[in-house]
C-alpha cells in the first residue's frame, strides 16, 4: 500500500430514501494527514453524507473504499471498529457524566473477576485526562469533573481525543465550530491541526468558510446532494467559495428569470395571490 492510497474513498455514491434522492454521484478521497473540508449550506446533504461515511446509512449505489479495498458497513459500530469516528456538534458526550466515565462509555476498563468485575474509575480518569492533555488542553486535570461543566471547545477536544485514543484513522467532525465563539473555535481548529499532524485523515464539515480555509488541504462543496466543486488549498478565494456554497449558478439563474418576467410584464410584479 503506497502512502498515496486514500484511507477512505467514495466512488459515485448515491443515496436515496424511497423516492427521494439525497446524494448523487458523490466521489471523494481523503488521505492520511490530510484535512478534507466539506462545505455546504443547510439541506445540501451534508448530514446524509456523514451518516453514509459513518455506517449509519448504506449507499444506494456506488462503493466505499478503505485503503483501496471496497467495504460495506453493517452499522456505525463496524465503521468505528474500522477506524472511522464521528464527533458531533456538541461533542456527542454526556453532560452529566464524569470525564472519565464518558470517555470510556461502551469500553469501560474493569478490574476484578466474574460478576464482581468493577468499573476501574482511577484508571479511566487517568487515561482520559492524559489523552486530553496530550492534545494541549491542560486545563482538564480532574477526571471526576462532569462533562457538562466544560466549555464547548473543551468538549469538542475531549471528544476528538477520545476518538484518537480509540484508534480512529478517519475523523469526521460534524460542524465542530458552529456553536462556538471565536476563541473556542480557534482552539478546536488547533486540535484539528494536531490530529492532522498525527497522521489522521480528517473530514471537516462546516459552513464557515473561514474555519475551513484555516485547516483544509482539500475542499468539496456540496449543493443539493451533488459535489458542485472540488479543489485544493489556494485554488479559490474565500468569496468564490462563499458564492459557490450559496449556489452561485442558481442565483444567477434566478436573477435572469426575474428579469425576463419583469420585461414581459412591463416591470409589474406578479399579482398577489
Amino acid at each position, binding site marked *: 500500500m503506497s502512502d498515496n492510497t486514500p484511507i477512505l474513498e467514495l466512488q459515485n455514491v448515491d443515496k436515496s430514501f424511497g423516492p427521494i434522492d439525497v446524494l448523487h454521484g458523490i466521489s471523494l478521497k481523503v488521505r492520511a494527514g490530510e484535512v478534507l473540508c466539506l462545505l455546504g449550506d443547510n439541506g445540501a446533504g451534508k448530514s446524509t453524507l456523514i451518516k453514509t461515511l459513518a455506517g449509519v446509512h448504506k449507499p444506494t449505489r456506488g462503493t466505499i473504499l478503505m485503503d483501496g479495498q471496497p467495504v460495506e458497513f453493517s452499522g456505525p459500530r463496524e465503521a468505528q471498529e474500522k477506524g472511522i469516528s464521528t464527533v*458531533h456538534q456538541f461533542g456527542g458526550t454526556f453532560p452529566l457524566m464524569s470525564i472519565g466515565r464518558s470517555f470510556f462509555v461502551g469500553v469501560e476498563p474493569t478490574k476484578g473477576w466474574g460478576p464482581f468485575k468493577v468499573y476501574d474509575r482511577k484508571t479511566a480518569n487517568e487515561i482520559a485526562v492524559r489523552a486530553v492533555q496530550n492534545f494541549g488542553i491542560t486545563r482538564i486535570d480532574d477526571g471526576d469533573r462532569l462533562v457538562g*461543566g466544560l466549555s464547548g471547545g473543551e468538549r469538542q477536544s475531549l471528544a476528538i481525543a477520545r476518538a484518537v485514543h480509540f484508534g480512529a484513522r478517519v475523523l469526521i467532525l460534524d460542524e465542530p465550530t458552529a456553536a462556538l465563539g471565536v476563541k473556542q473555535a480557534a482552539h478546536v481548529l488547533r486540535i484539528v491541526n494536531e490530529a492532522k499532524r498525527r497522521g489522521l485523515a480528517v473530514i471537516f464539515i462546516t459552513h464557515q468558510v473561514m474555519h475551513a480555509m484555516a485547516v483544509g488541504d482539500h475542499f468539496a462543496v456540496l449543493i443539493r446532494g451533488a459535489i458542485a466543486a472540488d479543489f485544493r488549498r489556494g485554488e479559490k478565494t474565500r468569496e468564490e467559495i462563499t458564492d459557490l456554497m450559496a449556489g452561485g449558478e442558481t442565483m444567477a439563474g434566478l436573477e435572469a428569470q426575474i428579469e425576463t418576467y419583469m420585461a414581459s410584464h412591463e416591470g409589474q410584479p406578479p399579482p398577489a395571490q
Partner: protein
Amino acid sequence: MNSFSIGQFVRRPEFGAVLSFVAVIAFYVVFGGVSLGSLFGAASWVNFAANLGIVALPVGLLMIAGELDISIGAMIPAGSMSIAILSGYYDLPIVIGMLGALTFGVLVGLMNGFLAVRTSVPSLIITLGTLVAVQGLVLAGSVLLTGGASVPLDAPAWAKVIFGQLINGKFQVIILWWFALTVVFGFVLHATRYGNWIFAMGGDEVSARNAGIPTKRLKIGLFVLSSTAASFVGMCGAILFNSAQVSGGMNYIFNTIVSIVVGGVLLTGGFGSVAGIFLGALTFAVVSQGIYFTDIDRNWSNLIIGVMLMAAVLMNNTFRQMALSFVPKRKK
C-alpha cells in the same frame, strides 16, 4: 481522591435526599412532637418504605436511563393475584405460584420494553396502556376463574419465612429484601460497566448506541426488572396477608415517582444514584406514615409531600448546577 470531603458530598446526586430526610424528621420532631425513639422503633413506616423502595429501585434505574414505567401500579396486584389464583384457588405448589407471578412480571416487562424500543411512543404512554390493560386482565381473569375479586392464599411455612414473615411481630421480612436489593442495584449502577451504560443511555441515547452500547436490550431488560420487582412486591404481600385483592397498587405509581425524584434522580435521565433512590423511599415513608406519630392531623400529609417534592426538585437542580460548574482548584 477517596478522602471524604464536604464539597464532594454536596455534588453527589443523593445529597438532596439526605437533606430532605433530615428536614422532614426535624419538622416532625419540632412541630409534631414526635419522639425519635418511638419513630425509629416503629415498623409501619419501614414496612411502607420497603415495599415502595423495592419498586422504586428498578423504576429509578429506568428513569436514569430516560424512561418511565407506571404499569407497576397494576403489576403489584397482578403479582399477588397470580400467586393467589395459582397456589390458593387451584392449590398448586407455592413454587408454581411464585414462578407464575414473576413470569407474568417478566412478560409484561418484555411487552413494555419491546413497545418502547420499536415505537417512538413515550414510555409514559406505553406503560399507561399496559397499566390499564393489566388491570382489566387481572380483574376479568380473576372473576372468570375464581368468581370473585379477592382470593385467599395459604402459603407453607418456609415460603412465609422467606417472603412473608413478621420479624419481631411487626417488621416485614421484605425489608431485608429491600436492603439486599439496594446493595445489588447500587453495585450494578455504580460499580459495573452496565451502570455506566445506563447513565450514558439516559444522557444521550443516540451517542450511547453509537458508542456500541446495546441500548435496546438494556432498555428491555430494565422494563423487565421494574415490572418483575412490582410483581415480587405483590407476591410477598399475598404471602404475608394470606390473601390477594384485585384493587390497590395505584398509589404506588405516584409514590414511586415522588420518592425517586426526591432521591435526586433527574426526571429526564442521565443523573441519579441508588443511595438517593433508597433515601427517597425512606423519606417518603417518613412523611406519609410518620405523620401518625405526630400531633398533626394526618390530612396534612399530602400537603407536606407536595411541598417536599417541590423543595427537593428545586434543591436538586441547584446541586446539579453546582456539580456542573465545579472546577477543582489547581494544585501547586
